[in-house]
């Protein structure tokens, strides 16, 4: 099990080695991985329908309770089959769709990574592991959306998608940690037994909010839906796989998975109903006005996700059953429509519905697939969509108080979805074939067989719901309710009822709308008029604002001029020091402790002061270097006066060397020019004097404090006894702190190598000029 979950990562990691051999002709072999996983997971199906819970445990970080515990129940099984099944078809499709693409192997690597992360996400029982896989899907989605990395729009969209889903992911992590803390366990199975404890805890509301934000960002719920249409910049296989069939359903999965833990609570239900309702109606209406096929499908996907959230929010048995069926229905038809869109785009070079028509004449199999998918999408009997739609109405009608309003919203949404499905599934294929597309020919079977398979399944399950109800759907509902029950059988025909009436209204309304409303630029313009108040542009403005602020801030603080950095540091330091010196400390001077002043010292210090002034104000390089040397020698004398002969010797030799070095390269050095204006010189001068003054004051104050001499005393006592040296300073350097000195020598050696190589280095073209 662990191997099957991680196999995608293994494949992705091995691609740098084997990828280049496979990508030319054998790209189709990549699809063996999802295919074998599909068969592997399918083999668990008998166990699942016998109500067995399969748990596979592997230790990872047991010390903090984070483990690979893979739990396979009905809900996970449905998702694993979707992930690997649609994954197989997408892998096959990609082999033809991106044939000859230079980075095809990379693409497969990302896809495989994504597949593994998604499998891990739906199988994890440990909520921290779940979160990690959740983030991995966001990251692989980022790479896939930005796959065409030379297009700016792609890069922007991928960043936006990562930003929104990553933002939600942080909330999810917080939610999971709080949930684990409140419930006392990181295992979902154990949390299910602590439902009462969790729901009565004061932190319950915060858990809900955090989990909701995570789920809503991932599943593109209003107001976080805006990243999904942008994500359609990705190559079509990605849109099919991630942004309609699997990844966006991760949020739905999360909600479904936590229904037995957090569900059946007033806040849970009302929030999900409201958010789902707004999303499905809002996105449904949006879908009508799009011209780009992928745009239509993106908005209808958001709308469908809204329906799912809404159904989970209703929370009744009927509603959860409807949700389980609709997940499958939607995955089947939406993936088909996306794949078909990809073929159209691939063959004709456009995705504009207003320009496409009559393609049936040149690519009939594709048209059949699209038509079947549109039928299922519309919920026209005998498709599987019809079964799904009936269940949705069944659920909304029996909800009680709000039944009429909610049913109305569902009807409106379904009409919009039907219209969108017809636009994508029928419009491009019926009617007259434009002259420009007469040369379009049927693509390779690798492209049109996958959508055909998916679309046929959508019809097959409708005619024979037996195939899936006991085996797939029932365990899903059982997992969401945390009980096993056998209260239903999926049926195509329910008899004459209100539900059937509603279905007819939906179909009639949608078909009517299809004939009345012709997609055109005009409609799109009308819809874009509301753009400035859409969540996308509001988010854009907010990020723009952040950008502006940080840019302004950066250009002020991080301006790239060394002296302004130095000034900033000094001003800040001066303020702090100045404040402390004048506020917190009594200034006094204990003259008695000071040593006497002798004339020769005064002379030395006087020479030093003059040299400093000379160094600063002279116009000649030579004078500056010479007076710097004088300063050094004066310091050397000071060391000598005050019992530091080693220091004096070192200072003398180093100072001499520095001056010699300066003089040696002096003729190669620039003139000693005044570059800055008087204003800045005065400013710098004042700052320098203030800082120097502060240092002097500080030094005086420190001199008043008593000195701790423990370390010196230790060296004084042990220098000879332990190290047999009479010069204590030398003993410290070469014995007690010997390794420091060795490192210092290494530093000097590196500097010497640097100097040598800089002297010997020949810059080619630049220097010859």
């Amino acid at each position, binding site marked *: 099990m662990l191997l099957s979950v991680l196999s995608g990562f293994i494949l992705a990691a091995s691609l740098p080695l084997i990828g280049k051999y496979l990508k030319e002709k054998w790209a189709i072999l990549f699809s063996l991985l999802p295919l074998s996983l599909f068969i592997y997971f399918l083999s668990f199906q008998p166990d699942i329908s016998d109500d067995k819970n399969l748990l596979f445990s592997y230790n990872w970080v047991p010390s903090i309770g984070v483990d690979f515990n893979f739990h396979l129940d009905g809900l996970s099984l449905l998702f694993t089959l979707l992930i690997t099944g649609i994954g197989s078809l997408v892998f096959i499709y990609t082999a033809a769709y991106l044939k000859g693409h230079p980075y095809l192997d990379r693409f497969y690597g990302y896809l495989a990574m994504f597949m593994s992360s998604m499998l891990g996400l739906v199988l994890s029982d440990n909520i921290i592991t779940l979160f990690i896989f959740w983030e991995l899907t966001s990251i692989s989605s980022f790479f896939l959306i930005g796959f065409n990395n030379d297009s700016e729009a792609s890069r922007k969209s991928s960043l936006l998608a990562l930003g929104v889903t990553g933002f939600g992911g942080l909330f999810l992590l917080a939610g999971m940690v709080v949930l684990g803390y409140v419930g006392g366990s990181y295992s979902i199975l154990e949390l299910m037994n602590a439902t009462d404890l969790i729901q009565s805890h004061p932190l319950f509301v915060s858990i809900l909010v955090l989990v909701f934000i995570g789920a809503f960002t991932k599943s593109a719920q209003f107001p976080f839906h805006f990243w999904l249409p942008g994500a359609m910049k990705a190559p079509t296989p990605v849109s099919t796989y991630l942004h309609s069939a699997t990844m966006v359903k991760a949020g739905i999965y999360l909600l479904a998975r936590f229904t037995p833990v957090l569900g059946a609570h007033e806040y849970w239900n009302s929030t999900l109903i409201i958010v789902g309702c707004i999303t499905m109606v809002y996105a449904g209406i949006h879908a009508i006005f799009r011209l780009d096929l992928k745009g239509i499908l993106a908005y209808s996907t958001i709308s469908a996700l809204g329906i799912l959230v809404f159904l989970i929010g209703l929370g009744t048995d009927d509603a959860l059953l409807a949700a389980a069926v609709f997940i499958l229905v939607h995955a089947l038809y939406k993936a088909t429509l996306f794949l078909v869109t990809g073929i159209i785009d691939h063959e004709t070079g456009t995705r504009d519905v207003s320009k496409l028509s009559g393609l049936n004449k040149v690519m009939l199999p594709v048209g059949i697939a699209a038509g079947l998918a549109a039928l299922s999408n519309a919920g026209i009997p005998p498709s599987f969509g019809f079964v799904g739609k009936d269940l949705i109405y069944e659920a909304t009608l029996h909800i009680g108080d709000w039944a009429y309003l909610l049913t109305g919203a569902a009807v409106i949404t379904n009409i919009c979805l039907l219209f969108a499905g017809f636009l994508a599934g029928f419009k491009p294929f019926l009617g007259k074939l434009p002259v420009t597309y007469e040369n379009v020919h049927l693509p390779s079977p690798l492209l049109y067989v996958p959508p055909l398979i998916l679309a046929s399944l959508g019809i097959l399950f409708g005619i024979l719901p037996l195939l899936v109800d006991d085996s797939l759907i029932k365990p899903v509902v059982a997992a969401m309710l945390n009980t096993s029950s056998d209260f239903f059988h999926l049926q195509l025909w329910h008899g004459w009822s209100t539900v059937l009436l509603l279905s007819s209204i939906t179909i009639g309304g949608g078909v009517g709308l299809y004939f009345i409303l012709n997609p055109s630029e005009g409609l799109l313009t009308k819809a874009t008029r509301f753009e400035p108040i859409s969540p996308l542009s509001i988010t854009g403005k907010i990020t723009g604002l952040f950008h502006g602020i940080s840019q302004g801030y950066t250009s002020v603080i991080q301006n790239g*001029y*060394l*002296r302004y950095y130095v000034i900033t540091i*000094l001003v800040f330091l001066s303020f702090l020091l100045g404040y402390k010196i004048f506020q917190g400390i009594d200034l006094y001077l204990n003259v008695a402790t*000071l*040593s006497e002043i002798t004339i020769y010292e005064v002379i030395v*210090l006087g020479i*030093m002061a003059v040299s400093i002034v000379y*160094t*600063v104000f002279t116009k000649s*390089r030579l004078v500056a270097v010479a007076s*710097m040397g004088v*300063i050094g020698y004066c*310091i050397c004398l*000071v060391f000598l*006066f*005050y019992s*530091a002969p080693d220091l004096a010797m*070192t*200072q003398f030799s*180093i100072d001499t*060397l*520095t001056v010699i*070095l*300066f003089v040696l*390269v002096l003729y*190669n*050095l620039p003139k*000693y020019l005044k*570059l*800055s204006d008087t204003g800045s010189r005065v400013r*710098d001068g004042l*700052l*320098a004097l203030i*800082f*120097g*003054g502060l240092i*002097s004051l500080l030094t*005086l104050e*420190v*001199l008043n404090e008593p000195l701790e*001499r423990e370390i010196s005393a230790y060296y*004084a*006592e042990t*220098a*000879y006894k332990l190290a047999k040296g*009479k*010069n*204590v*300073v030398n003993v*410290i*350097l070469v014995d007690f702190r010997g390794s*420091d000195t060795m490192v*210092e020598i290494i*530093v*000097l050696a*590196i*500097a*010497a190598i640097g100097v040598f190589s800089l002297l010997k280095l020949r810059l080619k073209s630049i*220097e010859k000029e």
Partner: protein
Amino acid sequence: MELLLVVIIGLLYAAGIYMMLRRSLLKLIIGLILLGNGANMLIFLLGRIVKGKPPIIDASESILSGIYADPVPQALILTAIVISFGLQSFAIILIKRAYKVVKTDDLDEMNATDEDL
């Protein structure tokens, strides 16, 4: 005497910082050297100054006794002097080299990357 040293240290710091704020690379390095000297003097002074009693053990004794100059700051400063020499010599050669290539000593004009050269 400490008073005068304190003034000189302040002066070294002020001069060093003033030079570091100049636009000329050469002045920047001179500023760095002055600042380093100031810091060495500061450490030296804060270890308290003692006349005529270097931290050297008499031939007849085995420990340092009585009043003696503190060996710890001296060891620190010795290290600092030597390291700063490494820094200075490298910096001097570097600006010489940089000046040869870009023909300017003005830090504000040294803001191009290799491609612009």
